[in-house]
């Protein structure tokens, strides 16, 4: 135990003191800063910027009606009214839009009878779909209001008819309808998978690399003469893992700090809020993340112990990623069928547990025994992986140069 601690401490300090650690930590901090700053600037200059649109029509009443509708549905669109103008002026106005730097021209011809007018919106930006939607809605409502007036309905009645509908989405959980947080579920699960994926690929590989370095530098023969390979592996896992968690902790704190700062607050109240992760979810997120991280790191350690060069590790990395990719692909299915037998089985299969069990929890609270069983299996699998890694590591001392074949590795496991 003391040995494992000493080894963990050494690994941790060597990593945290390295230039690479400092560099990546700072680089990420800078990136987060830039992203936060960027997010602050983007709304002002892109979607948040007011659009200046020329609204031209040969019908003043129609034009004014649409102008009012637009004003009531969006604060981002400023209308320059040109009405009434004859239809021949359209070309001149189009030129003007371009010359004077307006964003677009909405042309509304007078409608005849019950036919809707052929409105035309010419925009300088090809991808301005959002504005198009607002304009379409406004014209639509004006036309409906006019037709309803013509049908002889009172203004009050018309107002009632055109009132927008509010759709509240609920989720049935344990037989009761509760406020839906499907967005939060998705967001939480995505974050889980990506954080786990990133940390495993980056830090899990560090464990493998550190095992290989010890083999190539032959330090391991000295270490094996003092301590048990199991302590060595456990120490490595804890040390390298703790260094990774430190870095992620720094990044997370920085992100929070940015998030809490006044500039971030001004970006949007609904920006961070949608995640809406509850405390329970947060606790399980941490639990499954830590367990998953340890499991995959132990797996990496076993791979590291059975090869001789860092290049060879790359060939193995895809194996590690497969269960996570499976979790990602199955996400919609898991969220809508959290208790399907296949999903339950998958959530008890250790490599998939962190992702799948977390997803199941987000969708619907699974039975307690399944939850406990999955955690127990994951811990057992991690320990088993470490044991295998330690064995391969110890036998690897006798190997040079060539990569062991799978049968050889299996035979090593039987050696004492």
């Amino acid at each position: 135990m003391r040995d494992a601690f000493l080894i963990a401490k050494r690994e941790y300090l060597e990593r945290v003191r390295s230039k690479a650690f400092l560099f990546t930590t700072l680089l990420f901090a800078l990136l987060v800063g830039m992203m936060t700053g960027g997010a602050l600037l983007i709304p002002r200059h892109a979607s948040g910027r007011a659009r200046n649109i020329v609204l031209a029509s040969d019908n003043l009443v129609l034009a004014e009606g649409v102008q009012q509708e637009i004003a009531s549905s969006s604060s981002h669109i400023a209308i320059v009214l040109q009405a009434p103008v004859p239809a021949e002026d359209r070309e001149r106005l189009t030129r003007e839009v371009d010359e004077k730097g307006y964003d677009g021209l909405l042309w509304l011809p007078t409608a005849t009878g019950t036919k809707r007018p052929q409105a035309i919106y010419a925009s300088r930006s090809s991808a301005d779909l959002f504005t198009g939607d607002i304009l379409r809605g406004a014209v639509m409502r004006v036309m409906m209001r006019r037709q309803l007036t013509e049908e002889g309905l009172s203004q009050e009645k018309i107002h009632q008819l055109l009132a927008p509908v509010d759709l509240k989405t609920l989720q049935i959980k344990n037989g009761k309808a509760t406020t839906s947080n499907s967005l939060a579920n998705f967001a939480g699960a995505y974050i889980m998978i990506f954080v786990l994926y990133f940390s495993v690929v980056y830090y899990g590989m560090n464990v493998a690399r550190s095992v290989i370095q010890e083999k190539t530098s032959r330090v391991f023969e000295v270490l094996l003469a003092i301590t048990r390979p199991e302590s060595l592996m456990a120490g490595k896992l804890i040390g390298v893992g703790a260094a990774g968690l430190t870095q992620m902790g720094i990044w997370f704190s920085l992100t929070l700090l940015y998030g809490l700062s006044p500039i971030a607050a001004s970006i949007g109240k609904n920006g961070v809020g949608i995640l809406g992760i509850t405390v329970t979810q947060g606790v399980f997120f941490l639990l499954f993340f830590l367990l998953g991280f340890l499991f995959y790191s132990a797996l990496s350690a076993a791979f590291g112990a059975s090869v001789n060069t860092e290049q060879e590790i790359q060939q193995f990395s895809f194996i590690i990623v497969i269960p996570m990719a499976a979790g990602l692909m199955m996400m919609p299915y898991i969220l809508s069928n959290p208790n399907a037998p296949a999903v339950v089985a998958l959530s008890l299969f250790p490599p998939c547990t962190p992702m799948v069990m977390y997803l199941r929890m987000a969708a619907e609270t699974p039975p307690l025994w399944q939850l406990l069983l999955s955690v127990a299996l994951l811990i057992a699998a991690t320990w088993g992986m470490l044991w295998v890694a330690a064995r391969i590591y110890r036998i690897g001392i006798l190997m040079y140069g060539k990569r062991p074949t799978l049968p050889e590795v299996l035979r090593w496991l039987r050696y004492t």
Partner: protein
Amino acid sequence: MALVELERISKTYDHKIAVRELSLRIDAGTMFGLLGPNGAGKTSSIRMMIGITLPDSGTVRLFGESFNRKFLRRVGYLPEERGLYGKMKVLEQLTFMGQLHGLDARTAEQRAKRWCEQLDLSESLGSKTEALSKGMQQKVQFIASLLHEPDLIIMDEPFAGLDPVNSRALEETLLALRESGKAILFSTHRMDQVEKLCDFICLVDHGQAVLTGSMREVKSRFPRDRIALEFEGDGLFLKDPMIEESKSYGNHVELRLKRGADPQRLLHLAAESARIFRFELMEPSLEEIFIRTVGGRTDA
């Protein structure tokens, strides 16, 4: 007391027999030389001694008891292939190794500083290990194996790659350790060192001990058939059939007699025709014994 007792240990890797029924014993206060050509099974034997691998058959006893990992705290091991953490500073590295051997950080640090002073490494205490020369790194590793004041010191090729000055310093350190009652086992192919330092030797070849015993006893098993001779006058007696081979360096000649030949007869013969300044009956050198025993394979 025997600090190490190997009793008929064997180890086979796949189809290759690395060690076959090897027995040896190392006592406190003695220096033990493990000799043998490359691939003879020296490193395999050492590894089994300290539990890095386990023998397929036979028993390993340390400090008078069956092998137990707890004894490893009392063992200092210098592997054949040196391994240090390159990025660690020398003092950190030594402290870490000392701690792994059970010392507390302060004691480990104090001892590391003292050893470094003794072996002329004080200036490198704050340097990264990878920045040191190979010889210096070897001294660091040497110190790392001794910090916890082990009773049993096992060194695989400790002198390989060292210059004469450092080699001498290491020899003196080992002799001092023996004086203080430690048991030391080292493997080497430098016969002059074994001859100078070791009390007991074991020569292994093809995984088997082909020669074991105290230096004196081993040497006495080989006949004193080498003669160093200095003379003036007629050297005709050198053609006598009792001489197997001779090397002449002017008036100084080294020769070997045929099996069963009597050195006294040669002395008489020589005295008849020449003035003798020196006539020395020499015991065989360890190198000769080595070559005679394992044949022409001198790539140890």
